[in-house]
Every structure is written in C-alpha cells, then in structure tokens.
C-alpha cells in the first residue's frame, strides 16, 4: 500500500467526518427526519394492503363481518401475533367492495374502552358496584331466578335480547331460557327495529324473506326509498346506489330533507304518517292508468280485486289533501314507476317504527307485486334491516318464532325441533312469547318479576323512557349482560355480567340481504369478560340443564344444529358445510340447501314467482289508514320526529361514544332541528337552548334552525339519552313495534340556560 493511498484514505475519512459533522449540524438546524417523523412513517403493508403505518404492519390478515348495522360489510382485520391492530374494509367481499363507514373503520377502537366490564358486579347496600367472582355471580343468578320462579311461576322470569350477538349465541340463549330454564317470555330489541318488516313479509310472502340482494341497487332504473336515509344510516348501501350505471330515478318519501332526499331526483316530502295513504294513492294511479302487470298478478298474486276496490278512494285529490304532496308530483312519481323497467322499492325505520307500519310495508310490497317488480334483477320490495344480526334474530333467536322460523303452536314443528336438539318435546313451550311491550307491561302488572337483559339498553332506547325506568325499578331481580358496565340499563342492574364483544368471539351474523357472514376471534376480552356463548354455557351448568346442550361446546356446534333446524324451511342452509366455507365464499346468502351448487355471490328470491304460502302465491294485504293517536294540538302544536343523527352514531351510543374518532364526527350535545319559520314564531334564535316538552317529559336541547324540517315538525336524533322521555308508547297492532316518530310536543326558548 503506497503512502498516497494511506493519505487519501485518511483524507477521505476526514472528509466524511466533516461531512457527517456538517450533516448533524445541518440536521440540528433543519431536521427532515427523526423520531417524530418516524412515528408517521408508512410502509408497504403486504397482503394487498398498500402502504400502512409502520407500527401497525400486520403479519397476517383475516376477514370478518362488521358488528354495527345490517349492511354486513367485510372488514379485513390486520393481525400481529393473532391479535387485531388495525383494519381496512375488505375489497373482495361482495357486500362492501373495499368500503366502510366510520363505524366500521373504528370497530376495533371501542373494544379497549376503560368502561368495559371486567368482572361480574353486584351493588352493595350503598349502591356501589362490587366485583364478584363468576362462581358467585352464577350462583346468585340461578338462586335468585329460581326463587322468583318458585314463588311466582316459571313464566315470571323473562329475557330481553338483541340483534347484535351472533346467531349461535341467540339460539343458545333462546333454547337455554325457554327449554332449559322454563321461561315463557323473551323478546329482542329487534322488536324496536325490524318486527314490522318481519310480520309484513310473513303475511305477504308466507315467510319472513327479504327477497333482494345488494346488486339490485346497481341494476334498478327506478329506486324508491321510503322512510330511509340511506346516505347516513347505510352509507355502504348508498355506495351501491352511486355505482348504479343506469342513471336511476331516485324517489324518496320522507318528511325531512335528509341527505338521501337531497340527492334524490324526486323528493316527496309528505306529511308524517301519511305514507300509507300516499302509497295507496300511487297504487290508485297505477291501477287507474292500467300501469300494472296483469299477467304477473294473475299467476302469482292473490286478493288483487279486493285491493283494487280498497284503493279506489285514495284518489290523487284525497292523497294531496292528506299528504301535502301535489297531484302532479304524485302522478309524476307513479309514471316514473310505470316507465321503469326495473323498479326496486326499499324501506327502513320510517316505515317500520309506525303504529301502522305493517300495512305500510305491505303497501310497498303491493306496489312491487302489482307492477311485477319482483324476482328480477333490480326489483323487489326490500326491507333494509337495522342491526348487524337482526336477520339472525328473526330466524334463530327462539323468541317470536320457534328456532329456524318455526311455530311454537305447531306440534309438528315442536317435534322437529325437539328431535334435532335431542331434547324432550315437553320442554318446548306451546304458546307464543309475549312481545317486548307486553313484557314491560307484565313487569308493571307484577307478572314478570325477574328480567335478564342481554346486549341491549332499554333504559335508553325504550319508548316513553320515564315510565320505562319506573317499571324496570319494580323488578325483583334485573340481570344485565353487556360489554360495558356503564349503559343506562347496566347501571340499574342487580347483577351485571361482563361480556366479550364483537371481535372477541366466533359466530355468524345474517345481514339484510340474507348473507350469513362470519365473526372471528381477533382480540382478547378484558379482565374476566366472557363471550355471551360462554356465559350461556355457565348458566346452563349452574342451572343444572347442561346435559340438554351437551353438544354445544363451541359456536360452530350450534351452527351445525341450526343447519339441521333449517332443513326444509325457506331459509334452508344445509348446504353450507362449515365456517371455513363461509370464510372462503365471502358469506353465503340463504337459502343454500344441501346439493345447492349455486356459486353466484349475489342471489335473490322469487325469480320463479313461487312464494311461501301454500298456494305459492303472494297476498295483497291492506287496511284503512288510521289517524295518529296523539296529533299536534293547541297545547302541543309540533310533531316530534326521531331518527338517526349521523353515520358515526349507533343506537344508544354504547359503543360509538367510546371512539375518540367517532366522537369527533357527531354533535356531542343534544339538538333539535326546527324550521326557520317556526323558530321565528317561537322566538327561538339559532343555536340557543330550548325546552321541548311532551305530555310525558321535558328536555332541553340546542336549536338547530334549518329548512330541512318542515313547519310544524321537529327532529331530535335518537342517540341522545333524553330523547325517549318525550316519545309516546304506542305500537303497531300486528308487529308490536313502537312508533317512535310521532308524538306531539311544544317548544320554547330556555332563557335561563346560557347559550354556548
């Protein structure tokens, strides 16, 4: 080695040292990189994810169905060591094709909330919640309920369940309560959202069978939405509407100018609860103009003549007078339906939560039937469900129906179920259960003394809340089983059981389009929280009826039983092998009977025109419209509408309020929407505090003055706890669903409360 080289090496070392020094001084002065920059670095995520935050780069991914609404989106869970660290909507899931609403995006963040239950709790003499071991909790549970049953009869203990736990857990709960514990009465919070649609379908089609697939949103050339704010309540279904390549006419029936109404091509801003008349009015024009499918009616529909006679009196003039929609607009809408080649009709809570909801839903079904818009792509009379597993509840919760869409009062059905379950037929009640409202009334009448509430929050959500609270307080023993010990109902509990939530257990959900989707276990439950499934196993064990459910060790064991129960039913799923098959297929819609080789991802019902009544025909059901029981009066001159606030809020906010991201996306404080003319008339200035009163309660809220509500109407989102202090407890006579969206109130400025 020559000395030159040595020198140059030394020189270059020197240079590099100097440049390193210069760099570090330079960095100190203007620093492009460093620890703070690194916090937000993104890296190629593999698994087809594209770039994702470095700290959350997964070592595996898996797809499961979302746990909020009934859309049933697939979420791609990012896993590190088997545990969820992040998620993205699944691209190749047939429901949501890579999209999710904010609730879906934030599904994981609510699991880590500090108010998750970690131990069973029992209040002491001072009302303080004392943590107790599961052994004690279970013994208290059994002894107390058994004691009440021995004193007041077995039917004196009832349960209120949910549309938000997996089908397998619902089935276990329903079987355990009714077959194992001898309860007679149990219902779900699905009574508050879907009962109307279920009854309407059952009566019209012969089975509770929403006929559609989401693809229909994309294939219609006319889309009629009744009482449905799809943009906000089901953003991913609205996505499917936006993907429709046929430039569809969108007709929205809604008293409010919702986001969906604003995006519609025709918004019929009808008077509240005049939807039944308006729908009959549409039928009137369609029939009068001969815009009906006579051949279809002849072959597939019963009771047409009676229906045609019934709607004679719903003339455009009459409907204009009742609904406030001009004859011209009505006629234009009818003509649009006539001109449409593929017309689909959709409804949500605006119809379901009504004192005449069943007949209104059936008025929609009738329109689809008489125009022959059924069973073909882009058609159908389609109920959009609320909760993620309301559809599972409708078939398998063993509340209104005997497991698998069967009938408690039918001896053959009882025999089949007993046989499949391997239990004695005598364990199966021969009478139907009371509906939710009758159970609540039963408490009032001292007929129900013990109540087990699972994954729902009646103290917030039940209609006429103040009375509901008083009634719940009359119970001898109230057990609440929930993820969070802070729900309004859990706080009133004599025993609280901590439940694992979505993401912490396996099972299946059934979405609005009848798709059975899979839930997986991607997170550990906090403390000693147990999945509802495990809690039911424990209860069975402590109650002493565990032999009855011996073969149900895992959720998938129940799934296998449910398959058998569905055999021969319209919802036959005997062709689905197991969870793995559901996983591979991106969920499977029912029916999927044994031997079914249909592998299309999206299927609809009634393509052959065969309905589930004995004669294979659908029925047209109708009834004279009724007046609302509490119309606005001189004392209470406004009609209060309630409903969904934003896409980031869900029901009683038990979960959505736990996500900081979601909290940033909705108004924290209760507000009431009021029309500018009414605001002026009442002396209410925008953003000021107001008092809203009904005969049942009085609440204060901030006024949001907007023309999106009509004069004479007010709107308050249901997510705020106080809303249901105002609502009037009245129900659809067939579905027993509460009518949340019409009660008379008055509004006045609240001068004593400072406006912020």
């Amino acid at each position, binding site marked *: 080695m020559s000395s030159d080289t040595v020198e140059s090496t030394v020189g270059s070392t020197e240079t590099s040292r100097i440049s390193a020094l210069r760099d570090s001084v330079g960095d100190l002065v203007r620093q492009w*990189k*460093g620890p*703070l*920059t690194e916090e*937000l670095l993104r890296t190629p995520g593999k698994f*087809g*994810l*594209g*770039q*994702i*935050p470095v*700290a959350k780069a997964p070592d595996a*991914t898996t797809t499961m169905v979302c746990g909020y609404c009934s859309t049933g989106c697939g979420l*791609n869970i990012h896993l590190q060591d*088997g545990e969820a660290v*992040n998620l*993205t909507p699944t*691209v*190749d899931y047939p429901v949501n094709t890579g*999209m999710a609403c*904010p609730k879906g*995006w934030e599904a994981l963040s609510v699991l880590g909330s500090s108010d998750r239950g970690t131990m069973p709790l029992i*209040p002491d*003499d001072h009302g303080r919640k*004392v*943590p107790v*071991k599961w*052994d*004690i909790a279970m*013994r208290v549970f059994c002894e107390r309920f058994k004691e009440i049953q021995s004193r007041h009869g077995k039917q004196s203990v009832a349960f209120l369940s949910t549309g938000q736990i997996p089908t397998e857990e619902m089935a276990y709960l329903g079987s355990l309560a009714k077959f194992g514990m001898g309860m007679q009465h149990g219902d779900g919070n699905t009574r508050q959202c879907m009962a109307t649609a279920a009854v309407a379908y059952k009566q019209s089609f012969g089975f509770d069978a929403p006929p559609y697939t989401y693809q229909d949103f994309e294939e219609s050339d006319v889309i009629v939405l009744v009482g449905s704010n799809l*943009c*906000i309540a089901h*953003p*991913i279904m*609205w*996505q499917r509407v*936006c993907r429709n390549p046929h430039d569809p006419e969108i007709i929205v029936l809604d008293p409010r*100018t919702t986001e969906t109404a*604003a995006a519609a091509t025709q918004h019929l801003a009808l008077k509240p609860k005049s939807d039944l008349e308006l729908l009959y009015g549409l039928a009137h024009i369609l029939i009068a103009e001969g815009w009906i499918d006579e051949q279809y009616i002849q072959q597939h529909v019963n009771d047409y003549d009676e229906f045609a006679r019934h709607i004679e009196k719903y003339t455009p003039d009459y409907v204009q007078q009742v609904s406030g929609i001009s004859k*011209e607009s009505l006629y234009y809408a009818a003509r649009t339906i006539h001109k449409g080649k593929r017309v689909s009709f959709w409804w949500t809570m605006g119809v379901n939560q009504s004192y005449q909801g069943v007949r209104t839903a059936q008025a929609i079904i009738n329109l689809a039937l008489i125009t022959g818009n059924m069973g073909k792509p882009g058609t159908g009379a389609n109920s959009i469900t609320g909760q993620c597993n309301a559809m599972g509840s409708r078939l398998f919760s063993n509340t209104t129906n005997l497991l698998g869409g069967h009938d408690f009062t039918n001896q053959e059905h009882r025999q089949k179920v007993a046989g499949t379950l391997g239990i004695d037929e005598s364990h199966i009640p021969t009478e139907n259960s009371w509906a939710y409202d009758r159970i609540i009334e039963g408490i009032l009448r001292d007929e129900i003394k013990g109540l087990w509430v699972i994954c729902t929050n009646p103290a917030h959500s039940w209609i006429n809340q103040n009375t509901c609270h008083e009634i719940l307080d009359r119970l001898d023993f109230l057990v609440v089983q929930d993820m969070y010990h802070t729900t309004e109902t859990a706080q009133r509990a004599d025993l609280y059981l901590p439940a*694992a939530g979505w993401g912490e257990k*396996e099972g299946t959900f059934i979405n609005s389009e009848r798709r059975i989707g899979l839930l997986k*276990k991607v*997170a550990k439950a906090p403390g000693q929280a147990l*999945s509802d499934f495990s809690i039911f*196993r*424990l209860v069975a064990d402590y109650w002493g009826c565990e032999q009855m459910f011996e073969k149900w060790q895992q959720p998938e064991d129940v799934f296998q039983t449910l398959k058998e129960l569905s055999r021969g039913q319209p919802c036959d799923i005997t062709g689905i092998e197991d969870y*793995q098959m559901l*996983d591979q297929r991106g969920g499977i819609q029912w029916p999927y009977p044994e031997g079914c080789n249909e592998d299309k991802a999206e299927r609809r019902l009634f393509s052959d025109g065969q309905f589930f009544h004995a004669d294979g025909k659908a029925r047209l059901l109708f009834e004279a419209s009724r007046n609302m029981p509490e119309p606005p009066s001189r004392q209470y001159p406004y009609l209060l509408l309630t409903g969904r606030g934003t896409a*980031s809020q869900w029901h009683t906010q038990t979960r959505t309020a736990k*996500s900081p*991201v979601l*909290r940033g996306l909705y108004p924290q*404080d209760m507000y009431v929407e009021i029309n500018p003319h009414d605001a002026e008339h009442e002396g209410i*200035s*925008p*953003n000021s505090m107001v008092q809203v009163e009904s005969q049942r309660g009085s609440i204060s809220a*901030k006024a*949001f003055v907007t023309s999106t509500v009509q004069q004479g109407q007010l709107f308050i989102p249901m997510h705020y706890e106080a809303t249901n202090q105002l609502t009037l407890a009245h129900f659809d006579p067939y579905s027993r669903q509460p009518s949340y969206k019409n009660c008379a109130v008055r509004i006045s400025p609240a001068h004593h409360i400072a406006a*912020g």
Partner: protein
Amino acid sequence: MHSAVELRAGSQSVRLPRQLSRRMPTLETPSLADRGLIHALLEEQQQTTAVERFAQQHEQASEPLHSGHYRDLIPLSKPQPGEQYAFEVDLDACSGCKACVAACHNLNGLDSEGYDGAEQWRSVGMLHGVGSVHEAGDQLPILQHVTTACHHCIDPACMSGCPVKAYDKDPDTGIVRHLDDQCIGCQYCVFMCPYDVPQYNPAKGIVRKCDMCHDRLAVGEAPACVQSCPNGAIRIQTVNKQQVAEQSATNQFLPTAPDSTITSPTTIYKSKKPLPKNLLPADYYTANAQHSHLPLVVMLVLTQLSVGAFAVGQALVSGPWQEPLMLSTVRPAYAITGFLVGFVGMHAAVFHLGRPQYAFRAFLGLRTSWLSREIVTFGLFAGCAFAYAVSLWFASDWPTLLPLANGLGWLTAASGGLGVACSVMIYVKTKRPSWNGPRTTAKFTLTSLVLGLPVALLVSLAACYGNSDLTAHTVMRDYGQTLCRWLIVVVACELALEASVLLWLRSREHSPMKRTALLLSGELSMTTLLRNFFGVMGGALLPLVLLSDKAITPGETGFDPLFLGMIVVLSTALLLIGELIERYLFFAACVSPKMPGATGA
C-alpha cells in the same frame, strides 16, 4: 345470625346486600363448577383463533387490492412544470358519511388522544339553506356536506409564517409537508392557516397535518381519503398553479369559505348544481371561546410594558425635565426595570413552545416570518437594554460614557418599537378580522403607553427613596401629574377602542367580528366586565386621586409620599391585570373565518 354474607372475590371480601344474602345460605362454599368450567372458559377467552382456524386469503397479493377502486381517481402522470397535485371534491357525490375522516386517521396511524378528541387531518362540514324554487312552487331545502383537508395552497401561509422552516412545499408535486422534527411547536401556523389545518398536539409539542399521503402517490397508490370514499367523491388532480392563483383572485373556491386570495388554495370543489349564495355553514351561529395562549398573553403585555417604559422614560429624560438629577437617578431605574420586565416577558413566550429546546432555530424564517423577525428584534432590544443599563451604571463614574449611553437609550427605544411592530405584524398577517392592522396596532401601542406611563412614574418615585434631593412631591409636580393626565386619556382611548367591537352586534351578518362581539358580550361577558373594571380603577380613578393638589404639596397638608407610592403601585398593578385580561380576550374572542363546520361543532 349474620346480617350480611361475606364472600371472597379475588383477594377482596365483599358483603352482599342483606336481602340477597339471606336467601343464599350456601354461598360460602365454592361450587364444583368453579374449579373446572369457569377456569376453562376464561382461559379459552384469552386465545385468539382467527389465524389458526382460517386460511390466509391475501398472502400472495402483490398489488394493493384497493387499486381497482382508485385507479381512475389519481393522475396517471406526475405534474409538469407549472403544475401541482390538488384534491378535487365532487360535492354531488359527498353524502356526509365521513368515512374519509376515519380512514385518514387509521391508514395514517394518527393519534387518538392528545387533541380535543382524536387527531383528524380531514373534516366534513355542512352547508344548508333554501335553494331554488321548485316546480310545485315550494322552496327546496338544500343540504350539502363538504369534505375538507389541507388545500396544499399555492402560497401557503403556514409556510411563510413558520419561524423555523418546518414546512416544505415540494417543488415537483406542490404538496405542502410539515417537517415534524423541525417543528418547535410555536403554533403560529395554526394562526396563519385560514383553513384550520395544522393540528397541535400538546403531548408531542408539535403540529401535524395532511401530507396528501405523498409517499403513497409516489408509488401510484391513492391517499387514504381517496381510497376510502364509498362514492369516489375525492380524487387527486394536477392543476395549473397560475390558473389556481387567477381563480383564487376571483374567489371561486367555495361559498362561505375564507377568502381564497390569502393563500390560493388548490382544492377544487365541483358540483353540477351550482350552490346558491345564501347557504350557511351548519356552525354559522356557533361562537365558542378560542384558546387563550396564556404564555403569549404574558409575553405580549410584558414586552409592551417594557418598551413603553423605555419610551416614556426616554421621552422624560430628553424632554423639558432633562436635568442631572433625573439623568443620574431615574434613568438607571427605568433602564433596569425595562430590561428586567422585557426579559421576563420574552421568556414567557418560551412556555408557549412545544419544544423550546429547539427555539434557537427561530432565525431561519427571517425572510418570510414575522415571528422570526419578532424574536430577533426583541433579542436585539434585550441586548440594547442590557447594554444601556450597564453603560448607565458605569457612566455615573465615567461621565465620558454618557454619549454612548444616550445613543444606546435611543437604540433601545427604537428596537423596542420595532419589536412591538413585529408583534403587530404577526397578528395582522393572519388576516383575521379582529386582528386587523389598525386595531392591532392601536391595541399594542396603547398597551405600551397604558403600562409605560405608570411604570415610568412608579420608577421615578422609587428612585426618590434612594435620593434625598428628589422627593415624591417634586416628581409629581414636575411631570408626575402630566403623566397621570396622559394616562387617563390613553386608557379612555383604549377602553373605547375595545368597546367599539360591540357595535358589530347590530350587524345582521354573523361575520367573524359579530361573533367576536357575541363572545365578548356573551360567554366572555364576565371577563369583559372585569377587564373594564380594572381599566377604569387603575387608569382613571386612581390617577384622578394623584391629580389632587395634595399630591404636589409637601408636608402635613399633602399626601404622605408613601401613600403616593402606594397609589401608583396599585394603579400600575390594576392596569397590568387589566391589560393581561384584555390580551386574554384578544385571543379568546378572536373568531377566524373557517371552512364550513358540522352541526353542533
């Protein structure tokens, strides 16, 4: 007979309610199941099973699975010279679901805590109102959600305001990036950005903001918001910078949005149905008190006090009362006081920084940032003041130093004045209406005088204590009462100026100035009252006492010198508190124009 049953739960024993325990005589012994099933179930609950039970479906995917969705939503080629990337929002497709906000949060790993809620780089507001008359003769209500993020402006105010060059506008893509490690957390960009884009995180001590997912774009992936919008409402476009600047000049950006001439925002809001002009943001009537920036409150008031004291003092010693006694006694006193107060004031500002250890970078922005200029100028002021004080100290022994001291005195006053001018410019540059040029200049100048006058008097009186030749009464006679008269005038002007904001209450339009007025007379009304109380007490009532003849009468019939001193101390203290409250209101009641907000925002 036990009244309650003791149970063991974990290590803790609990007492069941009496009515419960009486019915459960057997609870004391654990049942058999406790040992087996519960244990097994609890253990099972802690096992995650998704990986072992189900096959990996996307293990081999090399391309991002979402690319099919966004292929048409990002440009095919990089921007040409004169062009840059921009967000384009199709308002007709934005249905207000806010998935973009949540997706941006998750896909970019933003913080869930440390802010007023979670960190959000995108937000969705709403415009509403009554639109065109529709066929049936009714007016059709309009509801329009608006998604918004950083507009990656042609002339980013965040960047020009930043004192440490923590912003970079990429020459090729035009993306305005924030250099997190360069940031000192002064939050001036938060003031400067008309669109409320930079988000300050107190825990980290820095701001962060949307970077248009620049590294995603670089490899042909779409930004998180573009990827996640169910309706494809957000896309990336290349825009011609010249064109954007021209369009900004005619304010075609978005109804109700802040004046686009300030920064020339590049986001394009398009709609097939032109938005009527009468739309209101959902938060139009909301006026919430803003962050008060306490260290800045202290800093502004004390630096202005210091400069004011210097200026008044300098005027005194060079005015009609120029006499050796004044020069030798009063001058060192106000020099030292002014220096000390100014020094404290400047250091108060450090508490406003999220990362004060990097404050030395503050000179980097001198070319564009008034904050840099303020820091440097006040640095100069402090240096001069110190040198001045030192020179006066030595001048008492070496009179030859006096000319130097005189020069330094003027230099100090001048640099102080410049510093206050820089302070003024910091706020004027934000283009917030309540911080406009005349108002801010008047406020800061008046504060200098309102505090400078009594402090100069106080210092003079204090100097008397060390000097038997000078008495409080002579000070009061020679110039003290003149100072008091001036003080009353100046305070009256100041209070009148502040009260003038309330005239905006009569405006029908809910402009930022009206909101400021609403805040001052509503949510902040108690504070406003207090501020006026302190102003009137310290700036009018107490000075009036000093205008009495007793203040200049020595001996029995006059005020005791100590009493005189106490009155001046009290007046100064009340005025100082009043000015601090005023400066608090200056920040808390400053409402800036913003992008449309959401209901209940």
